[in-house]
């Protein structure tokens, strides 16, 4: 079944969509606490930064339970939520981190569907299904599985990864940063970018802040880099693209990359390659310099909350400059017919559209 990938992605993305505001709220509380309370904020009991750090810390500890609950709910509707939250909490407690939460969510979701399908009660007792049978069975089965079989290897894997990331230095840091940066900018907010985001968000929950800053750089280099290239060589851009940039740059400031898609669409290889190159340079530098972010979203507005904000701006600037210069040198001057084109034509149809099926009735 070729739909399996799509379905899994859908549930995963649903989980993430519920999680983003939670990480943003908690991350900003932690960042504010560190700015006003210093590194030792956790020791200054009773101060405002101390309370903020507590709020943020408690909020962060909800991330794994929430993503498990949201994925389970996406798969099996309401009955999945409660057991999903419990399994997610267990995953968090035994140290599986984010990955455990995701796997736990899928486990619960399909367990609930399985229970719904195969356990049949007499009509008079059907009311027991949603309030007792499903939550208790799903929780007991998945909880035991998580604690014993599934959780341990994930926790071990998580530990190894974290140790490896924390022990990395110099060159390997640069390489990891480059790869992550290039991934983050590669498809302007598409699936590759989201995969990278997921990796960075997962590490953020575990207290590794470097990749998160790389995510910012990768998401903001495309709009700023293209804008720089436009300033260098105006004659290589159409009127339409000029208008597009007027929206894309403010969007970029808020860390929304999608604004540049129309510009990339006309010249996909050059734009994608230049943006990825700039983001790779910026991301590599950022990881090497120890820049980090406890906040997962917010663009330039949250830069003051970062670890080494000035270095961050420098990396972002260098990355954008690399993109801008590369693109300006590489891009050909526009031809007359392109300038006259009122709107972008869709020449090639999305291949996925060809074999998408219509369905009758709710699925």
């Amino acid at each position, binding site marked *: 079944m070729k739909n399996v990938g799509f379905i899994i992605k859908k549930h995963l993305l649903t989980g993430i*969509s519920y999680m983003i505001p939670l990480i943003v709220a908690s991350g900003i509380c932690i960042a504010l606490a560190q700015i006003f309370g210093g590194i030792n904020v956790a020791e200054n009991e009773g101060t405002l930064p101390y309370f903020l750090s507590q709020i943020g810390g408690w909020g962060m500890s909800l991330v794994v339970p929430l993503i498990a609950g949201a994925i389970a709910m996406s798969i099996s509707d309401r009955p999945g939520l409660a057991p999903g939250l419990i399994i997610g909490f267990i995953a968090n407690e035994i140290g599986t981190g984010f990955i455990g939460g995701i796997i736990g969510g899928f486990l619960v979701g399909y367990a609930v569907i399985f229970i719904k399908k195969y356990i049949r009660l007499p009509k008079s007792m059907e009311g027991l299904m949603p309030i007792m049978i499903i939550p208790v069975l799903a929780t007991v089965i998945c909880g035991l599985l998580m604690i014993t079989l599934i959780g341990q290897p994930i926790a071990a894997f998580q530990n190894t990864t974290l140790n490896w990331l924390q022990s990395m230095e110099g060159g390997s840091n640069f390489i990891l940063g480059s790869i992550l940066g290039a991934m983050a900018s590669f498809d302007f907010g598409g699936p590759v970018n989201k995969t990278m985001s997921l990796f960075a968000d997962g590490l953020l929950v575990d207290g590794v802040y470097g990749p998160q800053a790389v995510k910012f750089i990768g998401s903001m280099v495309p709009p700023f880099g293209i804008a720089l290239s436009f300033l260098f060589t105006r004659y290589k851009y159409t009127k339409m693209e000029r208008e597009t940039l007027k929206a894309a740059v403010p969007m970029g400031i808020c860390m929304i990359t*999608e604004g540049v898609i129309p510009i990339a669409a006309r010249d996909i290889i050059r734009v994608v390659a230049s943006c990825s190159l700039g983001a790779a340079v910026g991301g590599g530098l950022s990881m090497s310099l120890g820049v980090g972010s406890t906040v997962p979203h917010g663009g330039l507005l949250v830069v003051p909350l970062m670890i080494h904000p000035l270095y961050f701006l420098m990396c972002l600037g260098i990355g954008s400059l690399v993109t801008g210069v590369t693109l300006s040198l590489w891009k050909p001057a526009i031809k007359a017919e392109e300038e006259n084109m009122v709107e972008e034509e869709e020449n090639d149809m999305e291949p996925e559209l060809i074999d998408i099926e219509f369905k009758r*009735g709710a*699925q």
Partner: protein
Amino acid sequence: MKIVGVAACTAGIAHTYLAKEKIVEASKKAGHQVKIETQGTIGTEDELTEEEIKEADVVIIAADISISNRDRFENKVVLQIPTHVAMKSPKALIKKIEEEINTTA
């Protein structure tokens, strides 16, 4: 033809609204009536009414995530696509719908 639909994406701040815009633009250009509900992070906006769903010939669900209240579309012709398909090929999408509706009607 009357088209209704729901758009929803992961972050719920950009793709959702771009997909909506593209579908509405392409549908209007092809002379169809259209209304797209958005389920962003801010919540549901431009919610479809029961009436609109009842009258619609086709339901487009342009979503990367599970949408809420899907059961409203029971017994409707439903087309489910990821948001990027709606953003990249809106015209081809509408054309495909026209073909489908005309052959089955």
